[in-house]
């Protein structure tokens, strides 16, 4: 990201897209424009915006897609520019990093060593014997770690302990991780789906409804809700919503799981989440054609119950749990000729009705709540790419800010007829710790060389 290069395509547009200025500008613009979608409610009907904001502001909302800000053309352009900036920055830095990581830090002379941020040199009159030399080297190694060496550098021997040279690649991980996350999001967008379904207890579905388009999405298998259960704390707050689900493949039960919020069921790449529920009334009636035995029939709200032998259908229009201490239901009855009518049934009372020639008797025997479980259904093959991106982001960040490239040099040789020892070093991060470490070597060398100076 530094601003001088002539080795790469040095056109002005290239320079524009690789500048940190553009990055800073885009980050500020993204921060400011992202506010819009948190202030204006998202994903409402156009009618809502017209009524809430009036016709002139409504036009702005429509043109700028402020009803779906984060998928609007201009927001996507900003994200596109941001990605371009990241890619171009990376490409532009690459030659520098390659040069840095290929640089041979052993090919320096003793003069360069004395120009390093940390340096110390000793001169002694007599020659160093083998033992003293070894003790100096081992003092260096003890703190600096593994080293490379080269003899014949300015008439002496050079030792280099280098650590974290690879850390220059951290920034590529950090910046690349953003692109990985974007890529994962795109994979999810194009190869996955998001939908939902309201599934009554005891029933099976083989498709769900797409949340955005409202189209049916076939699952390729079926899911049955065996039971829905809700429990409460003593203070009345909800404690748990639980749906007991069974997966069926060609009518064979293949998988079973009881799901709660935060613990979804996954089957063949599709995940089912406990999202909501609805309770609908369900009544049981005793009904008989005069002269024949009674039969029991269950009628749920929003569903027709059939009596095929008599070609009658029943529906539940209203249910009241407490009418003067008794429950009451408004029942609708239709026949094959399309004649229909409704009447109220009070629990404990019998009622008669006529259809054509026939007289029927009906009574309300039982009423209860029936549950529908609301499931969020999702398929997202890109989610693992997103998690990979997140991991790379964190690791890259840690490398960029906390893994230093440390170099420590030790040179032992002759200078102007004397023995000279040079200790020097350089780091690009955490200078405090580096200084502490190199001072340790300095002290050790002081005690073995200082006395002889």
């Amino acid at each position, binding site marked *: *990201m*530094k601003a001088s290069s002539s080795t790469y395509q040095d056109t002005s547009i290239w320079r524009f897209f690789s500048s*940190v*200025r553009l*990055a*800073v500008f885009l*980050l*500020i613009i*993204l*921060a400011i424009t*992202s*506010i819009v*979608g*948190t*202030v204006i409610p*998202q994903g409402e009907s156009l009618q809502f915006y017209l009524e809430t904001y009036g016709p002139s502001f409504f036009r702005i909302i429509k043109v700028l897609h402020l009803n779906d*800000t*984060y998928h609007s053309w201009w927001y996507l352009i900003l994200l596109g520019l941001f990605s371009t900036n990241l890619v171009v920055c990376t490409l532009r830095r690459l030659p520098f990093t390659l040069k840095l990581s290929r640089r041979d830090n052993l090919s320096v002379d003793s003069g360069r060593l004395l120009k390093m941020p940390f340096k110390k040199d000793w001169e002694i009159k007599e020659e160093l014997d083998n033992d003293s030399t070894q003790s100096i080297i081992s003092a260096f190694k003890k703190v600096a770690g593994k080293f490379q060496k080269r003899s014949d550098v300015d008439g002496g021997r050079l030792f280099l302990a280098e650590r974290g040279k690879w850390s220059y690649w951290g920034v590529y991980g950090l910046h690349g991780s953003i692109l990985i996350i974007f890529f994962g*999001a795109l994979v999810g967008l194009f190869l996955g789906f*998001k939908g939902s379904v309201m599934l009554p207890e005891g029933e099976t579905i083989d498709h769900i409804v797409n949340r955005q388009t409202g189209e049916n999405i076939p699952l390729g298998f079926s899911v049955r809700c065996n039971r829905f259960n809700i429990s409460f*704390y003593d*203070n009345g*707050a*909800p*404690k*748990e*919503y639980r749906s007991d689900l069974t997966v069926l493949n060609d009518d064979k039960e293949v998988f079973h799981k009881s799901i*709660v*919020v*935060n*613990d*979804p069921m996954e089957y063949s790449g599709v*995940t089912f*989440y*406990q*999202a909501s529920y609805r309770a609908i009334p369900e009544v049981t009636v005793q009904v008989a054609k005069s002269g024949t035995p009674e039969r029991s029939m269950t009628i749920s709200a929003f569903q027709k119950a059939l009596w095929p032998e008599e070609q009658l259908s029943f529906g539940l229009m209203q249910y009241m749990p407490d009418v003067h201490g008794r429950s009451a239901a408004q029942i609708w009855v239709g026949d094959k000729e399309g004649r229909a009518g409704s009447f109220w049934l009070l629990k404990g009372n019998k009622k008669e009705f006529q259809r054509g020639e026939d007289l029927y008797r009906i009574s309300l025997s039982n009423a209860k709540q029936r549950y529908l479980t609301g499931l*969020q*259904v*999702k398929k*997202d093959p890109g*989610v693992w790419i*997103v*998690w990979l991106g*997140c991991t790379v*982001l*964190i690791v890259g*960040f*840690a490398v960029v*800010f906390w893994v230093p490239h440390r170099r420590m040099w030790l040179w032992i040789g002759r200078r102007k007829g004397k023995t000279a020892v040079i200790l020097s070093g350089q780091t690009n991060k955490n200078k405090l710790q580096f200084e502490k470490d190199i001072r340790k070597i300095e002290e050790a060398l002081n005690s073995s060389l200082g006395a002889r100076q």
Partner: protein
Amino acid sequence: MTFSSSYLFSLTTFIYMGAAALYLIQWIFRVRKVGLLATVVTVGGLVIQTIGIGLRWIESYQLGYGHAPLSNLYESLVFFSWVTIVVYLIIEWQVKQRVIGAFATPFASLSMAYASFSPNVEDKIQPLIPALKSNWLIAHVVTCFLGYASFAVACGLGIMYLFKNRFSGASEGIIGVIPDCKVLDELIHQTIVFGFLWLTFGIITGAVWANDAWGTYWSWDPKETWSLITWFVYATALHARFVRGWAGRRIAYISIIGFVSVMFTYFGVNFLLSGLHSYGAQ
């Protein structure tokens, strides 16, 4: 009822207010001994608050709910002040400068005062609603608040920077004891780097949790969006160092703007906007 968590938290409120006053006194009147006292009082407050948090955790088990004390606004305010004090004490210990305390501890005492005295903040231990019953709760809240607290301290440092920069001629007096602009700039940077890492962790743990709970790792819910806005602001601060003319004063401003964004993410979203994170407002 004397030795309950709420009693200890009330005590903590007064101790932190006292500590903030002591740090201010030692800054303005430059009395060394008061500075030492301020540190002792702050550490004492932290110990009592830590016991309080542990006690509240135990109390929730005694009530039969059994969850970490990180589940509503009251508990998050207590935790926010706790982390702010921890982050500040680490900096004090590293930098050996008590002046920063005058700009950092007020955030912790304000947070505790708001939790203790505001009638809008419910301090009863409540059971966890189904959406919050997850192992990710602790990871998400702890990481986010480590970020928030670091940004609070960075904001305090930013204010110090602007003070110092404005009266840069003064080498004595109350401005004189504020560390050099260069030192402050480096401290702001370090604190933002630390906070940014935790904010990033917080957003990621939130995404992983959302993916488990709601079936989508990102739904542009106002809280999520505001955490991203905050992330953009601090990403700006980290990159601005490489732009000529941006280091120093402008980054000090960004550290303050960033904290305003943090505060909006924390409170504004709960009170002014509606969304999936509404349980944070109770």
